[in-house]
């Protein structure tokens, strides 16, 4: 037994971290955050060059053919840097096409997705509420009509993996007829959302296999958990750093035992999540029996901790932590996203209890 990242995974994380530190330091991040699109084309291209955008695309179709754990360690790093852009939905769209696409479909989409030439996205939030595949209501077919609430990718997405009635997935090109998208006034400006409307829109159905939808959902939960872990680790670092530099009453505030203990509690909220998200990611490819349930546990637990850490980070920064100018707010809103996207913790805990047979 070896419960640790491989050297390759550690190197992958370092490389991605280096890229983000170089090309998207906080000064740049803020520009993208405040921009109209929330998209940094140069950064996207750099990611593509590094091969990150096709990590989970099989080698035959131009990708790296890696596993969920590899994807997750990248998601952790993205979360740490609050990397802006459509990475999450892109990776999930790929996951669905890899698992549910015919050879022809794979050939059609995967190479362009792997190279980052086209941006993938997912649209699996029913307009009336519900992320679970049994809550999807748009009738499946070669032409679809209906509304969905929170599709990823902002206005950058080129194609959508869409959730359809009967736990079915289909692929819709953004340019197709009858597609209209409207900006969602989301909190997290690093990952923009749109509401979609389809009106007799052409749709290519993926395999009629509910496992594909399940996999999409579970990998999504894992990536959100990984992002949340990385983000909360960053907020902890920022708070510790602030405590070491800010003075009150003539001393660095990090001298105050009450603040020390608050920061210890934050650390206790952060660090134990690492092994949990690792295992949840690993289970997707290696522990079939547990994969669905542990994804729910990780998503509920780690995104909840992220939100707690974010609240405490605001407090640890004093009044300034509450301003737009303070970087904490960027991660705070990512925490809101990670917690709400794909359903909030209460929903996943209900599933967790059911799957345990409680």
């Amino acid at each position, binding site marked *: 037994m070896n419960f640790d990242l491989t050297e390759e995974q550690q190197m992958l994380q370092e490389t991605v971290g280096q890229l983000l530190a170089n090309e998207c330091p906080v000064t740049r991040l803020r520009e993208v955050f405040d921009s109209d699109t929330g998209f940094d084309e140069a950064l996207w291209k750099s990611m593509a060059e590094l091969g990150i955008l096709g990590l989970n695309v099989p080698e035959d179709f131009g990708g790296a053919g890696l596993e969920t754990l590899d994807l997750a360690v990248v998601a952790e790093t993205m979360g740490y840097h609050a990397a802006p852009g459509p990475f999450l939905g892109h990776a999930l769209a790929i996951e669905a096409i890899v698992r549910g696409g015919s050879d022809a479909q794979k050939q059609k989409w995967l190479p362009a997705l792997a190279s980052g030439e086209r941006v993938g996205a997912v649209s699996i939030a029913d307009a009336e*509420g519900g992320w679970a595949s049994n809550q999807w209501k748009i009738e499946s077919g070669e032409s679809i009509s209906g509304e969905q609430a929170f599709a990823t990718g902002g206005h950058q997405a080129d194609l959508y993996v869409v959730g359809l009635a009967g736990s079915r997935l289909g692929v819709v090109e953004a340019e197709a007829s009858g597609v209209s998208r409207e900006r969602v*006034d*989301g909190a997290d400006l690093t990952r923009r959302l749109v509401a979609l409307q389809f009106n007799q829109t052409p749709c290519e159905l993926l395999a009629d296999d509910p496992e594909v939808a399940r996999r999409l959902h579970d990998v999504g939960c894992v990536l959100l958990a990984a992002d949340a872990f990385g983000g909360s680790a960053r907020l902890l670092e920022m708070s510790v750093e602030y405590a070491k530099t800010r003075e009150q*009453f003539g001393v660095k505030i990090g*001298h105050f035992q009450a603040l020390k203990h608050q920061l210890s509690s934050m650390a206790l909220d952060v660090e134990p999540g690492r092994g949990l998200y690792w295992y949840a990611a690993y289970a997707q490819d290696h522990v079939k029996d547990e994969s669905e349930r542990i994804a729910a546990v990780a998503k509920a637990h780690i995104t909840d901790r992220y939100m707690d850490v974010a609240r405490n980070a605001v*407090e640890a920064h004093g009044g300034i932590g509450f301003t*737009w100018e303070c970087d904490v707010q960027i991660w705070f809103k990512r925490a809101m996203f990670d917690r*709400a996207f794909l359903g909030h913790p209460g929903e996943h805990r209900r599933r967790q209890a059911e799957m345990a047979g409680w």
Partner: protein
Amino acid sequence: MDLNYGTEMEDFRQEVAQFLDENWPLKGEEKDWPFEKAAAVFRERAIERGYLYRSIPKQYGGSEQPPDVLKGQVIREEFGKRWAPLEARGIGTMMLVPTLLERGTEWQKEKFVRPTITGEITWCQGYSEPGSGSDLASLKTRGELIDGEWMINGQKIWTSGAHLADYMFCLVRTEPDAQKHAGISYLLIDMKQPGIDVRPLRMMTGSADFNEVFLNDVRTPEDWIVGKRGEGWLVSRTTLKYERNSIGAAQQTGASFAGLVKLAKETKIAGRPAIEDETIRERLAVLEGYVKAHQYSGYRQLTKDSKREDAGIINMMMKLFSTEIGHQTAKLSMDLIGDEGLLSAGGAELGQRSSSAQGWIGQYMYSLGIAIAGGTANIQRNVIAERGLGLPRDAAADRSSGK
């Protein structure tokens, strides 16, 4: 203990009701006056009858009534029913006026109290600075007395309403050689003068509820000082007490809780109204325990205040207690709005409530902001421990106070 309104109070209620029937909204040609003007006239009449500004002497524009918590309550209820203007709730009325009444000179009271309480002039507060949040003693804005005028230079932060205010009451270091606390004075400044630069400070919600104020060779007359030179720290503490009470008002938590119950009735969890979910019911019930405890603690506090007795340690904890209730309320609301937790905070200005998801998101964020305004939670915990429970003072705080 007696929570009934006796017959005497019912008579008083009739009297107030009759006054309101006759006076609000305004009648005759006054009927179409703009609200501000109408409110000012109405307030004057209500003061004449002894209904508003009851604790402020008549000579400064108040109605100078003997304290009577019950009458105050009846007035609030009857005015509330008819949406009649109550006392202006600005920071001037709540913080400056009590300070002036206790510490101001005669001319200061005469000049400032009346127009402040009628809402004719408005104030902003200049305490915090970027380098000194909870630690006011370390502030750096300087005032020098030159040719009978104070010349002030520095920067203030968290100044709400600064772009609208006529005046600022602020803390300024005037005695550079004195010990930290002893070097501060409490000055009043006219905001409508060159050298004052107000820049909005954007909050994480996206709205700008506060400002930064840059003071560059700003002037104010020598006698626009409250208390003596170097006494500003003490003078400001009178005021802080008022701020605590006003922010901690139990009414707000009650209203917020009611809103939460409403939200739980309107939203769904797993296809059923959230209010039917046992988990939500339990969480609401737990929260209501705190809300009720807060409410009756508020009753106790008011009763003690009206008897001019000290309610004790509860005075030091009301704000922290309501902050914590606010946290819990906000947290529960986020679980109730579910998917809409993806949205941005929309249109939630401080103190304004909205039943929409975005309003709750704003409240969620503000529940953090409120913990910070007027002394952080940790400072309040120190106060409870040291002044309330009699534990030894903090070494660091001792150092800064020169002990």
